[in-house]
């Protein structure tokens, strides 16, 4: 959790290099507030709702949180380089549609299906990234346009009604478990560890933070900021594709809008987790905590017998409140 200290942005200067300096309470609150909040929410859930802390329910929460978490990882990357990806939900659904178009019955086809979907989604990310960097299109519009195009492509492929089937192995990806841990969570943890290392342990990660916090400075020190940004968009689309494949395994059936709403949920989770829309700040772990909080809240709404409409209201209030929390704190 502490690896992101050295890359806290350009303002820290030489003081931040080397051993982590002492931080003020308010600074620590910014950094770890989200985790404290997640913990409090879980305690609150356990106290108010008897079934909440049963292993069955926790397993449900984690299985549900896994696809969202995978998408959030990518969204965090893009937001860190001052971007935004509205096309993730469309990529998820398109990946699911492509996967079923194979009509495969044998599990041996799963790697092929994954490879095909990842390739296609990487292409989408490439288009997003090139539009944003080389043509300086606002990320919002670029990814909005690819979202609409993808939607058309998807419907053209399926002629409106998706058919075809998935190998049985997909059900294992979505609902199975490895020694008691849901498969989706295992995948999420592996991805989170991989991307965590990429961001906090590699040169690429340092470049991501620098490009996000100060693009012109990053150019001056010789970083090819366009390439870093494009890489983030490609990785984001690939994450969305993986999230879509896990989600379709979990849901078990396919329609043209698998993952609808995930573009907003993933942005909400990232922003709640402290990934600033202004770029260059935040961590993947924060974003994942955000995803967990959202899933827990939805779960609590259902367990307490509240109408599911309240999910929307709570979601809307939380996104505004969380962003305001960070903005007002950083404005001091």
């Amino acid at each position, binding site marked *: 959790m502490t690896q992101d200290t050295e890359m806290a942005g350009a303002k820290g200067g030489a003081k931040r290099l080397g051993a982590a300096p002492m931080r003020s309470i308010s600074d620590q609150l910014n950094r770890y507030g989200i985790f404290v909040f997640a913990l409090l929410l879980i305690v609150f859930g356990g106290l108010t709702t008897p079934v909440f802390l049963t292993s069955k329910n926790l397993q449900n929460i984690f299985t549900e949180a896994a696809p969202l978490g995978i998408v959030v990882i990518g969204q965090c990357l893009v937001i860190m380089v001052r971007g*935004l990806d509205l096309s993730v939900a469309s990529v998820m659904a398109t990946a699911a549609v492509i996967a079923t178009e194979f009509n495969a019955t044998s599990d041996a086809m799963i790697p092929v299906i994954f490879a095909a979907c990842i390739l296609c989604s990487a292409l989408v990310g490439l288009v997003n990234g090139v*539009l944003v960097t*080389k*043509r*300086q*299109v*606002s990320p*919002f*519009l*670029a990814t*909005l*346009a*690819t*979202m*609409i*195009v*993808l*939607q*058309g*492509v998807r*419907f*053209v492929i399926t002629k*409106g009604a998706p058919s075809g089937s998935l190998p049985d192995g997909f059900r294992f990806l979505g609902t199975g478990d490895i020694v008691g841990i849901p498969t989706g969570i295992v995948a999420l943890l592996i991805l989170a560890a991989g991307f965590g290392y990429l961001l906090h342990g590699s040169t690429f990660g340092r470049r991501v933070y620098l490009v996000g916090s100060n693009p012109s400075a990053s150019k001056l020190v010789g970083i090819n900021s366009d390439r870093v940004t494009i890489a983030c968009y490609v990785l984001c689309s690939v994450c969305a594709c993986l999230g879509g494949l896990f989600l379709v395994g979990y849901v078990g059936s396919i329609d043209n809008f698998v993952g*609808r709403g995930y573009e*907003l949920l993933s*942005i*909400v989770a990232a*922003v709640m987790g402290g990934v600033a*829309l202004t770029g260059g700040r935040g961590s993947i772990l924060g974003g994942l905590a955000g995803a967990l909080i959202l899933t827990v809240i939805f779960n609590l709404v259902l367990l307490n017998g509240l*109408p599911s*409409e*309240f*999910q*929307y*209201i*709570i*979601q*809307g*209030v*939380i*996104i*505004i409140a969380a*962003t*305001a929390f960070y*903005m*007002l704190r950083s*404005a001091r």
Partner: protein
Amino acid sequence: MSLLSMDRQTGRWRLSGNKAPLVVVLLIFGLVIAGFLLSDRFGTLRNFSNLFGQAAFLAIIAIGQTLPILSRGIDLSIGSTIAFAAVLTSGLIDNDPDLMLPVTALVLVLGVAVGLVNATASHFLKVHPLIVTLGMAAVLRGLMLVYSDTPVGGTPEAYATFAMGRIDSGDEGLTIDIWSGSGLSLAGLFCLLLYGLVYLFLRRTRSGRNIYAVGGDPDAARLSGISVYRTLLVTYGFSGLCAALAGIYLVSQQGVGSPELAVKGYELDSITPVVVGGTMLSGGVGGVGGTLLGVVLMAMLGNLLNFLDISTFYQWIVQGVIVIIAVSIYVDPRRRE
């Protein structure tokens, strides 16, 4: 005069956002010519008169979106506001002719209120309008579903006049008829009037000019004594008003308001004509003239593709590609590279 110019340093083709309307006009001409050549039903007076009425919905939501974008913001709560307004209108009127006017007025006021909340939250909490209006969209959708999760109520036949009415001059002077196939669409005329008024407002009044100033540079605007907050109240209040109006239009057209409207993606549809018409997302550049041209282009394109029996699926692809092309060649005229 050359429209496209080559950027000397980067070697990229660029088009000043100011010149975007010219390009859209050329595209519309090309589309009309293609329409005449490819379809014998496209180039009829009847079709153009139908098109005039059909474009009204897009025209209303697009002009609503133009003002927040001009002030360097965006309003993503439009889709939910439309649905909420539609459900509330048909639910409260519930086929009672006496309630038509009061409920309509109430819904319009609520639409403005949604916009005022958006502006206030965005300004005082210092949260990007994208996030605020996104959150607002979720809240509104939830509230709407609490009110009703199925199509509710209904409207008397007279309520259809707004969306379906046609003005015709016959023997007995001007008549307004709902089911007439000829004549000028009332909603279309209303939109023309709306665009004219907003054009004058933006060009000729101080509040209108302030929107450009705030969109161009909020800090400079504040330092020169412009109230940024009041300007945002105007732009978001207006987009809320237009969204409520669009919801009322749909009820008038379909006779009932359905919660399904919230997931149709109207907020995104409203952005396409605005950006195609040359209004920059970076704020302060563009105007309702470009938006009107964008609306005409998109409406005509959909109309022609329908006549050519090209499915909606391909229309999405075409729409997305047009947005990509437009936004990737338009450049902010203020930017010097």
